[in-house]
């Protein structure tokens, strides 16, 4: 049977009255209040705990940030220390150097990159960005460092100060013939003077300042008649480290003034046995050959073959620079356009006037021959590299300025002055032929010579300028010109290079970088 609405109202009213009665009694209120208070305290405690945890977490991160920052700063210092070992001038603008990895310091780790951001005339600037990491935190800082540029000149090898420099420490350098050497001689091995001349090494002038020095690292062997200097005109100095032998008998080298014994046949103003540290300068044939586009010269007149096949193999064979027809050819630096500013060297020959003009560096992949009848004079300063050997075969002359061709073939009129114009000829002697440089017949070559292997003079053929060689067989040298500072491009020549001096961090360039990194 369905309950009537009136009955339902009555039941609800009874229930409300019961609840009101219960509340009126206030039983259980304390428990409810306690629960409420506990709940409030729990919320407060939870909040507090959260706050403290958050604070600790934040501080821990702060600590790592600080340590990462110091590690990043260490990265900057180490980057500067690393860059300071480099020559900034040899890097192009935009070049990048990096730490190449991540390294540890003080429990953290760092890495860095440096980019050349300024390539100035007087100084460069590099921007260094270092990243320090400590745990999950990374910091990045960036600075700019300046590197001042300056020119440094490396002096020419002291070997060029000698008229003859023999760099092989073994063997005996023979001096023969009847004409004296009127130049300074340096021999790293032994020196054997067995010629028939009364004076084998002497001062060129009988009065005035002296110029001849003799250095023998090994022993000096003197035959019956040759002498070094004379009692009347001693040479400037004699340094003989080994000892002196006269006709095979050991002698005291020193012949002081007033000593009539002339025990050793060595007459000098000063004597010494202290070794020198000069060595034969090296010749970078590979580098010099690679520096030019020798196969493709640009000739305004005629033609000249410097190379046939872009391989350093003496492919040109025998050649002469004094050809029957004129030429004027310029070789450009390898890999660069053949335009003004990229020239490496120019060689020109006027067959009518017998005038050779040289400048810069020239490399010919062949054997240089001065054949009979090759006579000419040159102007300019240049370094001529010959991949093979050099030889003369009589009646040849290459006259240096201001001298000119002599009346007869194979002679020059006047005295070459190396400060007016100079040519150095380097016999690379790639095939190790012997001799590397051969002088025969009658010839005068007004040039400085650099020889790999044996330099041999015979007859009345001679090189006027200084000769640097491994070994030598010498006759007299009637003319000599000092070239103490050979043209650029010559082995052992003076070189000027740009070097960097690393300075300090550029003021105002230090900055911290955002998380995304330094732009």
């Amino acid at each position: 049977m369905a309950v009537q609405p009136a009955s339902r109202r009555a039941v609800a009213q009874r229930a409300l009255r019961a609840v009101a009665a219960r509340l009126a009694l206030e039983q259980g209120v304390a428990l409810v209040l306690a629960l409420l208070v506990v709940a409030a305290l729990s919320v407060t405690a939870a909040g507090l705990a959260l706050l403290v945890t958050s604070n600790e977490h934040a501080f821990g991160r702060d600590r790592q940030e600080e340590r990462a920052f110091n590690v990043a700063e260490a990265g900057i210092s180490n980057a500067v220390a690393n860059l300071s070992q480099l020559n900034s001038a040899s890097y192009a603008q935009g070049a990048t150097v990096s730490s190449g990895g991540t390294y540890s310091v003080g429990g953290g780790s760092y890495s860095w990159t440096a980019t050349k951001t300024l390539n100035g005339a007087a100084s460069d600037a590099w921007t260094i960005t270092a990243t320090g990491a400590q745990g999950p935190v990374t910091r990045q800082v960036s600075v700019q460092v300046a590197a001042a540029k300056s020119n440094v000149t490396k002096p020419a090898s002291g070997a060029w100060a000698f008229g003859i420099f023999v760099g092989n420490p073994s063997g005996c350098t023979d001096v023969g013939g009847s004409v004296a050497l009127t130049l300074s001689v340096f021999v790293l091995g032994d020196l054997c003077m067995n010629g028939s001349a009364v004076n084998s090494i002497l001062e060129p002038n009988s009065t005035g300042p002296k110029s001849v020095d003799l250095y023998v690292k090994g022993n000096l062997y003197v035959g019956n008649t040759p002498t070094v200097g004379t009692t009347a005109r001693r040479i400037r100095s004699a340094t003989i480290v080994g000892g002196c032998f006269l006709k095979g008998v050991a002698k005291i080298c020193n012949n002081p003034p007033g000593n009539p014994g002339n025990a050793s046949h060595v007459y000098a103003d000063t004597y010494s046995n202290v070794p020198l540290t000069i060595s034969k300068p090296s010749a970078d044939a590979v580098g010099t050959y690679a520096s030019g586009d020798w196969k493709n010269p640009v000739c305004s007149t005629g033609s000249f073959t410097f190379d046939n096949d872009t391989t350093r193999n003496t492919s040109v064979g025998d050649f002469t620079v004094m050809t029957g027809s004129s030429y004027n050819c310029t070789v450009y630096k390898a890999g660069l356009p053949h335009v003004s500013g990229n020239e490496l060297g120019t060689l020109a020959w006027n067959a009518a006037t017998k005038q050779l003009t040289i400048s810069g560096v020239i490399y010919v992949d062949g054997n240089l021959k001065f054949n009979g009848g090759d006579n000419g004079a040159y102007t300019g300063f240049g370094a001529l590299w010959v991949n093979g050997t050099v030889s003369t075969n009589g009646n040849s002359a290459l006259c240096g300025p201001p001298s000119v061709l002599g009346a007869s073939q194979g002679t020059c009129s006047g005295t070459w002055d190396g400060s007016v114009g100079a040519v150095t000829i380097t016999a690379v002697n790639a095939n190790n032929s012997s001799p590397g440089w051969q002088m025969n017949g009658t010839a005068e070559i007004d040039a400085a010579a650099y020889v790999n292997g044996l330099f041999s003079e015979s007859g009345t053929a001679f090189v006027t300028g200084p000769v640097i060689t491994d070994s030598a067989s010498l006759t007299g040298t009637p003319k000599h010109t000092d070239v103490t500072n050979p043209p650029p491009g010559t082995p052992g020549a003076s070189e000027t290079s740009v070097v960097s001096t690393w300075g300090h961090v550029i003021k105002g360039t230090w900055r911290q970088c955002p998380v995304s990194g330094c732009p």
Partner: protein
Amino acid sequence: MRRRFLILPRRPAALAGERGSMLIELLIAMTFLAVAVGALMTIYASTQLSLRHTSIEGNALTLADKQIEVYKTLSYDNVRLDASTIPSSGTDPYVTANASDSTIPAATGQVTGGTVGASACAAPTTAQAECATQSWTGPDGRAYRVDSYIVAVTPPEGGRQVKAVTVVVRRVESGSPSAQIWARATTTIDQSNPPQ
């Protein structure tokens, strides 16, 4: 049809009177409160400890940074220690630190040559250079000892020599430095230092 209701047995007379129910409620409430307040007190104590720890670490870190900054302002040659300020006792934390943490340099083999003198390092008012150890009162009023280590090293990636400066901060408790390290900082200084 007449509805039939379940008839419960009558309550005992003692309960029917409801006397003492208030006391029981109170006891239960007190128990709850006691547990809650106890837990809260534990949290408060832990919080207090944590805040104190953080405070000490923060102050120590500030002191370490101050010391590092001093060396960053010096020329390379002057980044060094006064040998007379390096503790000689084998039990001093300055000496023993390396044994427990290899990233802290050994007490020997450091860059010396400084002439500041031990007295200047006793209780300086500002961060002092050349002091292997120095005692400070931190911003929080607590006593700290700041240990500095300076060694010459070559960067592992190559380059000229630099000086690695490591600063370690300890608390001074009962007049002695604690073994615990509260803060440390390490950086290197190049020969071009300081920045111009």
